[in-house]
């Protein structure tokens, strides 16, 4: 492979990682916008989404991938609703620290639950690993084509939902100003439930794509949550397009970064970006927004 294709391949890998981070980040930022807290259990929706697919593809269901995704996404949506119903709704008016700790506890619980059912070992969906097809001098596997294709479809769906449908617009309104949304007669409870379902489904889609391209393990959610959180911070919390862009930037920064530093530090890149942004805007986690 000549050096130009090598760099292009690096950029492509960055975009692929970025697509997945973007799907995670959009869901995370949506909940932040609507409920005004960072859902640190979002990573578990990513992981559970991937495992639900594993469940429906394995015995006793044995469904093919294209069929199994639908019950898997639906169940993850329900898990999102269950998270809200059992943990977050009872403490809706609590301060951020309470919500943060509750989310972390929930995250540990869900990770251990997955480990209980499926074990701690790394698993795959059992597809053969095939060499990628060459495309404009770059190598892309079927899974990677799927990542790009599905992400584009999700972005279009998010656009249509949030900018063309009344429910989506009311979620944006809620995100702007909850009290004013109530005053305007918007059904805020329904909008919050919809936000949980959308956030969970986006997480599951990202988790499934990631697991198709790599593998499944109970830590896959928490490991990627940090990336998604960094992406959310870059985009400005609550901002859907910002999260999309932030996700792509993190993916690119990580992959281009390893051209210059040892790949062992790859995961550190997102951390560094996150720490720098938090130094400038600490209110995101610990306190009130100053606007």
């Amino acid at each position, binding site marked *: 492979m000549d050096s130009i294709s090598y760099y292009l391949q690096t950029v492509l890998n960055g975009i692929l990682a970025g697509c997945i981070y973007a799907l995670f980040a959009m869901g995370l930022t949506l909940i932040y916008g609507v409920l005004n807290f960072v859902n640190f259990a979002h990573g578990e929706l990513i992981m559970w989404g991937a495992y639900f697919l594993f469940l429906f593809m394995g015995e006793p269901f044995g469904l093919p991938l294209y069929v199994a995704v639908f019950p898997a996404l639906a169940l993850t949506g329900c898990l999102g609703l269950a998270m809200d119903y059992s943990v977050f709704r009872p403490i809706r008016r609590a301060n951020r620290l309470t919500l943060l700790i509750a989310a972390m506890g929930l995250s540990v619980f869900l990770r251990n639950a997955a480990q209980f059912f499926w074990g701690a070992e790394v698993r795959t969906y059992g597809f053969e690993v095939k060499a990628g097809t060459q495309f404009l001098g770059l190598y892309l596997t079927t899974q990677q084509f799927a990542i790009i294709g599905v992400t584009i479809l999700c972005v279009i769906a998010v656009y249509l939902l949030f900018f063309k449908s009344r429910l989506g617009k009311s979620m944006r309104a809620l995100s702007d100003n909850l009290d*004013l949304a109530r005053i305007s*007669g918007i059904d805020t409870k329904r909008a919050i439930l919809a936000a949980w379902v959308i956030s969970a489904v986006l997480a599951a889609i990202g988790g499934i794509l990631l697991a198709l391209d790599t593998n499944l393990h109970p830590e896959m959610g928490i490991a990627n949550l940090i990336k998604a959180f960094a992406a959310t911070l870059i985009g400005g919390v609550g901002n859907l397009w910002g999260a999309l862009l932030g996700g792509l930037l993190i993916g690119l920064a990580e992959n281009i970064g390893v051209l210059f530093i040892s790949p062992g530090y790859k995961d550190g890149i997102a951390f560094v970006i996150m720490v720098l942004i938090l130094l400038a805007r600490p209110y995101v986690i610990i306190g009130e927004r100053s606007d």
Partner: protein
Amino acid sequence: MRLEAKDIYAGYGKIEVLHGASIRAAEREIICIIGPNGSGKSTLLKAVFGLLKPTKGTVSFDGKDITRLEPEQKVRLGIAFIPQGRNVFPSLTVRENLEMGGTVLGDAKAVQLAIEEALDSYPLLSRKIRDRAGNLSGGEKQILSLARADMVKPGLILMDEPSIGLSPRMIDEVYSKITEINRRGTTFAIVEQNARKALSIAHRGYVLDLGQTRLEDTGAELLNNEEVKKLYLGG
């Protein structure tokens, strides 16, 4: 009587702000509530709209007891509330803000029709229809919040401090809009720091002090009342 709030007690947590305040407004009337800072003016509006639950007292609308209804249900009955400051959705466009105001109209056609009507009666907004509401000037935001409330042609609009932070020219603009909407049949209850301006358009006014209604009279009479002049109109 369109609106009747009788003997309202309300507050925040253990702190009681209103100790038996009463107001009423007839159909097509503009009433204004003036009083010093901390007298409970805004609290009274919130209690009427249901953002705060009164601990005692009753609120009725067209003769129906609405004291215990949620804000959403009051919107459906035709009561709109315009809070002080932060009263538009900043990241939504002007059109989307109006659309949100029309939420309770239900079907998309009715909302579309109401938006077109609003753009006819608020030419200032029709020029900015695609702008984000957050980029509008303070006066434009106040006009938008009026138009948003007006989307459902409510029977009653409760408005908290319409003139706050606005230039004198914009205050005139907002108030002329209020009288225009009122002439089409909407009752207004306005809480105002700018007592002179509010009393000049109000049919009747109330002076609230320490959580109780102290005075009640026509707008013109209150403007000429020596005590009101001395205390609230700057001599």
